[in-house]
């Protein structure tokens, strides 16, 4: 009898196991948290050195187009204008999203509304395979197939925004599609049934009811795709031409933030202005990624409310 009472009153192996389990798993998430904070901190502190240590003006960084961190301009100021790269980055991102969206929506609708069983069975592996192809392989195909074709059609080198857009379009297609499928699947079945019962055709139902109801989540799907496109480095770098010039058309060589980073960071010396300037580009990427994240959250919240 007393032994049972003792047992009830005292901690046991199980008590210690639970403390242990909590501590050890907590440490694991803490590692991730510390990691994220240090990424933000290190990239930010490097990235702002251009402005705080080298006293480059933030305004000229975002409004000038000449990028020659090693050289001074007529006013004795270093030429650190990232506008051209930002414009290119945004252009390829937006164009890729514009092209990918109808394809992604079509595939998602086909998988959820038009042929839910057969369609999903065939298209699911298609999407998974598209995700599986590494970005350097996309870049390589862009370089050996897309670029020559563009060169053939439009002359010049064939490199530039058009080639970058086409490569990115295929790369973000699976992301946008998968999330769109989720968005459509999350719609309550009664929406569909009610609309069809009222005599609406399938397309009317899709167009007037389903797409409308799923709009917030579809929008986040597209933004996820844009985030991926904006941050993609190597595939774009292989086909964009890598000339830091304001793009004059879709088929002239230019450079994105990521392409400039990947090609140049190895050629500069830590702590020098040209190096700091590149870290500033990385900071822009980081900030944009956070902004995309915020946008997704914001739209997600709005979607839940309505």
């Amino acid at each position, binding site marked *: 009898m007393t032994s*049972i*009472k003792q*047992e*009830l*009153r005292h*901690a*046991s192996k199980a008590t210690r196991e639970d403390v242990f389990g909590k501590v050890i798993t907590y440490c694991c998430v803490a590692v991730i948290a510390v990691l994220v904070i240090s990424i933000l901190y290190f990239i930010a502190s490097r990235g702002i050195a251009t402005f705080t240590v080298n006293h480059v003006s933030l305004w000229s960084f975002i409004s000038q187009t000449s990028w020659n961190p090693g050289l001074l301009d007529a006013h004795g100021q270093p030429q650190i204008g990232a506008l051209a790269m930002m414009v290119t980055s945004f252009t390829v991102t937006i164009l890729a999203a514009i092209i990918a969206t109808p394809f992604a929506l079509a595939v998602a609708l086909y998988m959820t509304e038009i042929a839910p069983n057969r369609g999903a069975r065939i298209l699911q592996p298609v999407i998974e395979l598209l995700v599986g192809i590494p970005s350097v392989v996309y870049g390589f195909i862009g370089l050996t197939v897309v670029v020559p074709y563009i060169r053939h059609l439009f002359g010049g080198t064939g490199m530039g925004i058009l080639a970058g857009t086409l490569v990115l379009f295929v790369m973000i297609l699976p992301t946008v599609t998968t999330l769109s499928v989720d968005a459509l699947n999350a719609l309550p079945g009664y929406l569909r049934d009610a609309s069809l019962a009222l005599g609406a055709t399938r397309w009317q139902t899709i167009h007037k009811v389903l797409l409308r109801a799923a709009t917030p989540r579809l929008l986040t799907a597209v933004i996820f795709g844009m985030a991926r496109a904006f941050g993609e480095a190597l595939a774009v770098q292989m086909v964009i031409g890598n000339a830091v010039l304001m793009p004059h058309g879709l088929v002239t060589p230019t450079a994105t933030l990521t392409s400039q980073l990947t090609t140049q960071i190895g050629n500069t010396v830590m702590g020098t202005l040209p190096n700091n300037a590149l870290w500033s580009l990385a900071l822009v990427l980081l900030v944009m990624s956070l902004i995309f994240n915020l946008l997704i959250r914001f739209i997600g919240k709005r979607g839940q409310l309505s």
Partner: protein
Amino acid sequence: MATYDLTAHHIIEPGGPIALSTEKLQVFYGRQQAIFDATLNFPANQITALIGASGSGKSTYLRSLNRMNDKVARVTGKIMYQETNINDRTINVYAVRRHLGMVFQRPNPFAKSIYDNLTFALKATGIKSRTILDDRVEQSLKEAALWEEVKEDLHKSALALSGGQQQRLCIARALATQPEILLLDEPASALDPISTAKIEVTLKRLVERYTIIIVTHNMQQAARLSSYTAFLHLGHLIEFDKTPTIFQNPEMTATQDYITGNFG
């Protein structure tokens, strides 16, 4: 639904030794109170049935007894077991749950072999000897009336058993750790009549060695099995008496209406 006086109740003192009792037990899910001032003595080595309409708080009450509601609900009041209030922060809940075994409505065997299902908890308490483990497996399977059916393939996946067998395995699993009290929450509601009958026979035999508290929706089952019955209504313990009294001559109108089916 007819309204009854929820403060009025009729609760007798069972004869003989008491295995477990609650004093002014209250359970809250957030702000919502699910059990009000439940004071009750559970007789040792008897089957006590908890009956009541859906949502009356039977599961809530039962799960509070072995502290399964710790993370889900706030439970105040006393639960006395072995002269100890086990509803206390300083109490070792793992020990509590080993002494108050529990079987759930849906059979929930682990995705392991039959043998591992039964020995997993034993190994966790440090029992390593193969002979002890084998003995316990055989003994608890026999107690749960499953031994004859599975003794040939103890290493088969438990998920390959039928629903009724799985539930008896869950009973055996609860018995393997040698508890004193067995809490069962509608253990037969997901089963066919034959499996149900087997489980009832099993429980009848077990009561010689264990104190059993069983939640059931099935009045016949309560009448067949239990020697005491408690009736809950909207979180209030309305009546507790010997089972024949409850079913033939209840004190409270609510009980009367419930067992005659004139409820709501």
